[in-house]
């Protein structure tokens, strides 16, 4: 699985689901801390549409952690300051890097759940799609 997809599922999942997956890995493998969870900032780089140039809109609070699982490194960075979650995410990442992660089906289930939730929320917003009728005859109706 591509890292972006993996981290998207992990970031959007609730901390308890990630903790359950990480617990299984902790029981079966040796985990060593390389970098304790800590807070840091990520500067957000944007492209503006007028001149197509880049600018910084501001920073976002993130936390990061690096661990080793049976000697293979894994890491995670995620928005917010949930140290336990970021540590568990790093463990899952290391398990992927060592090719010992066996619960991908669970991640796919979470992904499916997340997509349905997002689409249901989207449905509520799409109900506000509007088609104004101009009362001015000079404005083309279509």
């Amino acid at each position, binding site marked *: 699985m591509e*890292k*972006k*997809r993996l*981290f*998207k599922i992990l*970031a959007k999942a609730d901390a308890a689901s990630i903790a359950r997956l990480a617990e299984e890995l902790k029981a079966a493998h040796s985990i060593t801390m390389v970098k304790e969870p800590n*807070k*840091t*900032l*990520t*500067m*957000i*780089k*944007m*492209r*503006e*549409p*007028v*001149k*197509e*140039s*880049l*600018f*910084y*809109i*501001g*920073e*976002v*609070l*993130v936390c*990061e952690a690096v661990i080793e699982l049976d000697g293979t*490194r894994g*890491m*995670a*960075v*995620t*928005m*917010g*300051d949930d140290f336990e979650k970021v540590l568990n995410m790093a463990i899952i990442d290391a398990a992927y*890097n060592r090719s010992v992660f066996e619960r991908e089906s669970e991640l796919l289930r979470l992904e499916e759940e997340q*997509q*349905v939730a*997002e*689409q*249901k*929320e*989207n*449905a*509520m*917003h*799409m109900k*506000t*799609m*509007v*088609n*104004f009728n*101009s009362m001015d005859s000079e*404005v*083309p109706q*279509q």
Partner: protein
Amino acid sequence: MAYVAVSGGKEAIEASIELLRYYRSGCERDLELEVIEEKMSLLVDRIMGEAGFYSKRYAALALKQCEGCVEEAVFLLRAYRSTLTRKYYSQVVDTAGMRVIRRISSAFKDIQGGQILGATYDYTHRLLNVKLEHEDAVALREKVLTQLQMQTPVEVSACPRVSDELKKEGLMDSYPESDEEPFDITENLLEFPAPRSARLQTLARADTGFLSGLAYSALRGYGLVHPTVGELRTGYVEICVAYPFDDTQSIFLGELLLTEAETFTEADDKDKLKLTDGYGAVFGRNENKAIAMAIADRELEHKGPYPTQNEEFVLMHGDSLEMNGFISHLKLPHYVTFQSKLDAVRKTRGGNA
């Protein structure tokens, strides 16, 4: 007039800080951060934007700590932010791929992807709803979540930009993508003329009230007068950084809620044959600030005799921390300089008597 150092007052200052606790305590009920985050979210968005620091939880904490004072909360977040390292820079955020929750255009009735009103107070009657005084929060939440669950899922699709259509038709200038590293006003002193990136970063962090007043002055005649909102969109964008162990891969950090505005005006070309746009982008749902920013961007690009078109005037006076810090310094002891001023007034009166 300059302020002077004074000594003493230690006990009174300690008592004053203690007295703040009396004011902040207010009543016996705690103000939970989740409540501020979720039910005062527009205020939280404003604080995060003006602080240039996106963290709903810490913005809520700052508001709790200072009795909801906007400038104090911004100050607290800026101060906190300065204690943190900055280890990451995001990959370029693609706002065209935004998961839109609101999108309107005042320029065109029909836009590709549709006009989506989203959640807006624009069409509400501004009548105080006394029923909210004793609301059953649990029942309300359960009701809206049930409504959400009953929805038939609709796939999320990105909306093209309105300005892209005008660019395709040649009615608006197109520019090649520039990857020049942006100026960072948090690390470098602003110099004039300011690069475009410094202008946009400064405006994105500016005080909402300052920018709104500035844009209002342009609309009332002290500027280009009346732009059209080509597009206003609010939605979630993905924030990613490179994966440190393999930079061909990236890490998804989370989603950020942003509001973007593009305002259209006539271009400066001699024959007025083209349109051009101003751009605004802010954290959260703060659309008047985004529109005001787009107006300020266009006014500064145009240049001219009005305050809104003066780069130094606009970029040097809109920062919440700086403006409130300077105003606040007036409360410091100015005894010596005021005495000399008083002496001068007395002398003049004496001379005239």
